[in-house]
């Protein structure tokens, strides 16, 4: 029978030292974890409990006015708030279009690099640069690009003999400008994950498929996509969750305008909480968004069978 090695950390001295020393040794793990646990509790538990309680209360900006319990009143307000409905619609449109484009471009680029330009590492580095730039800097850069009078984009349009555009100032183009900037910034993220996924694929199934005369498309559809499914699912999940929180690009480029065309949920929650100082209502909206995101993520993970 194999003898169990004594774990120096797990070993609890029993017969020596004072009672305090023995207690300390026995609870050393808990003691060492306690500061971190307390910090985490403070940073996550407190805000969550605060949000849950505020969502069912009317929280006055006046600290001397006691909070008033309003039950589901704040949630009911959401049903008749037209600005919120616009924000939800815009957020969904943005998420669907931006994440779809990022996925298609990211996957396409990854396939291209994996198949044909494996050795050009500097190109990969260049492609990853947008993702590494701070989001505010990205937004400011695109603001300058879109500037109707001095921006590079209209200069390009002029040189091509095309009419200049108002871009972020055009109600029909504003959302597209936000999506374009987001696609530029986050396609590299999908590209990176896909490239890593492709690099880890086994070569044998492809060799067998080639022997069987499978076309490149069949190989991609029947081998690459199923093999990549977990990576695709993770990439999409992360991007969708991030896109639902879109704030910085909109805040810098359009402040939700023109005519509410780019108002997003995060921007609206920010306005309700910090401009209108209506903390109860902002907490209620945040809570619904949180549950919707968690619900969607759970469904998505099950649907993609990630748990397997």
């Amino acid at each position: 029978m194999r003898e169990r090695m004594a774990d120096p950390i797990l070993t609890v001295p029993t017969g020596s030292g004072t009672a305090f020393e023995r207690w300390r040794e026995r609870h050393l793990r808990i003691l060492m974890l306690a500061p971190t646990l307390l910090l985490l509790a403070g940073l996550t538990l407190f805000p969550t409990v605060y949000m849950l309680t505020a969502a069912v209360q009317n929280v006055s900006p006046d600290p001397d006015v006691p909070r008033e319990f309003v039950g589901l009143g704040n949630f009911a307000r959401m049903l008749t708030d037209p600005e919120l409905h616009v924000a939800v619609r815009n957020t969904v449109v943005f998420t669907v279009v931006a994440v779809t484009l990022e996925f298609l471009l990211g996957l396409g680029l990854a396939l291209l690099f994996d198949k044909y330009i494996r050795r050009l590492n500097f190109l990969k580095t260049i492609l990853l640069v947008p993702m590494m730039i701070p989001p505010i800097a990205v937004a400011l850069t695109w603001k300058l690009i879109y500037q109707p009078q001095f921006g590079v984009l209209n200069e390009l349009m002029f040189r091509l003999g095309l009419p200049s555009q108002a871009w972020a100032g055009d109600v029909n183009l504003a959302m597209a400008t936000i999506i374009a900037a987001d696609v530029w910034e986050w396609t590299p993220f999908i590209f990176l994950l896909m490239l890593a996924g492709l690099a880890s694929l086994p070569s044998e199934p492809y060799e067998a498929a080639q022997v069987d005369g499978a076309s490149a498309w069949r190989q991609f559809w029947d081998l690459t996509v199923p093999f990549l499914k977990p990576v695709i699912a993770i990439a999409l999940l992360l991007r969708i969750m991030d896109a639902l929180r879109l704030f910085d690009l909109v805040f810098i480029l359009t402040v939700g305008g023109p005519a509410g065309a780019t108002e997003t949920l995060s921007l609206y929650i920010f306005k309700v909480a910090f401009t209108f100082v209506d903390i109860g209502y902002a907490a209620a909206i945040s809570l619904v968004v949180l549950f919707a995101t968690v619900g969607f993520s759970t469904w998505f993970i099950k649907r993609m069978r990630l748990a397997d």
Partner: protein
Amino acid sequence: MVRKFCLALAVAASALAISASAWADITILVPSGSEGDGLRAAAADYAKLKGTKVEIVQAPYANVFEKAANAGQTKSGAFDIVLMDDPWIPFFAENGHLENLDAYFAKMGVPGPDNDFLGKSLAVCRNPYNTGPFVCIPYVGNAQLFFYDGAKFAEAGVSGAPATWDDVYKAAKAITDAGGGRFYGYVFRGGQGNNVVADFMPLLWSYGANLFNADRTKVTLDTKEAKDAMTMFMTLKGISPKGVESFGPEDVGRAMTSGIAASSINWPNWVATFEDPSQSQVVGKISYAPMPAGTHAGSSEIGHWTMGIMSAAKNKQEAFDFMAWATSPEQIKISATRGNPPVRFSVFTDSELTSQPQFRHYPTLMQAINFSTPRPRHPKWPEIENALGIELSKAVAGTESPDQALANAQTAIEKIAGISQ
């Protein structure tokens, strides 16, 4: 031993970091930009002079309100003084975030700020407006001016300062028509929210309209005067550059400094930029005028930066002493040389300043302040401004007719203000 030393060092460093702000005698929250920079410089002078440690917390415009509201709501005492934009005053005062300054003035042996301050500058610091107790002291004397290229306007048939919005339109249209899509007679902030509202309000007032009636029991955007103002606003939009629908102050400033646009409503702190050869192609070409008239006398939007003491402040008397010092005639003059418009008659008329080109707009600015109008003094102004800003943005973007936008704004503001029709 080493481990104990490192642990002690870490604890000490954490304690130092946490209590850094607590060391300050006074902590002041200020906005980014010239207003905050000016007060930061004054605070440094004060610290040297009095030996008082003054901590300045600087944040972007929107975040100053957010931080101050949060500090007020939680009674955190994080800030002793807040440099506030004047439309925020009703919110802070009516929610108990600001200290009534009457007792502090009484302790000084005076009833309130002295008469050298302009009347309109003091009026915004009382809550209710012009009648209530002082809850702040004015520091930066902002009021909108009408900026225009005198030579271009003269060439377009309007000599001297345009007296009416019709004059502005006449000259601006001629400039736009001759500009071939590259030069424009007028430019404005059309971006949703505060931007479009700030450039619409002077037109509203100059046509004799307002958002509310005198006792704030009725929203008055359904009047003929409001519709006339909206008509002129949209007419001017028609001769403005492409993309004004998303323009903020920087876009308007850049259009003017590059010579692309010939006129705009703007804040006086842009004067320094316009007169700086490193930033402007129109140095010496821009003239500054009071707001043109519509069917009524023109009126600028007042946008003073004022200093108030937070109710939960830890060092209220020290804070008041600093405010009294920073708003003295000598300090307001120094503040003016740092690019912040003054709030005192003696500084506006100081020949040492007015003889210099960069202060040549002072007589006009003083006149603009004296004939200015505050934004509606309502504790829910941020919400009202948002609702009006969305509807104006819809009108400017063309997704709603101007009349429909006014009607929708009327309904939205009535709902926010709790006014039944």
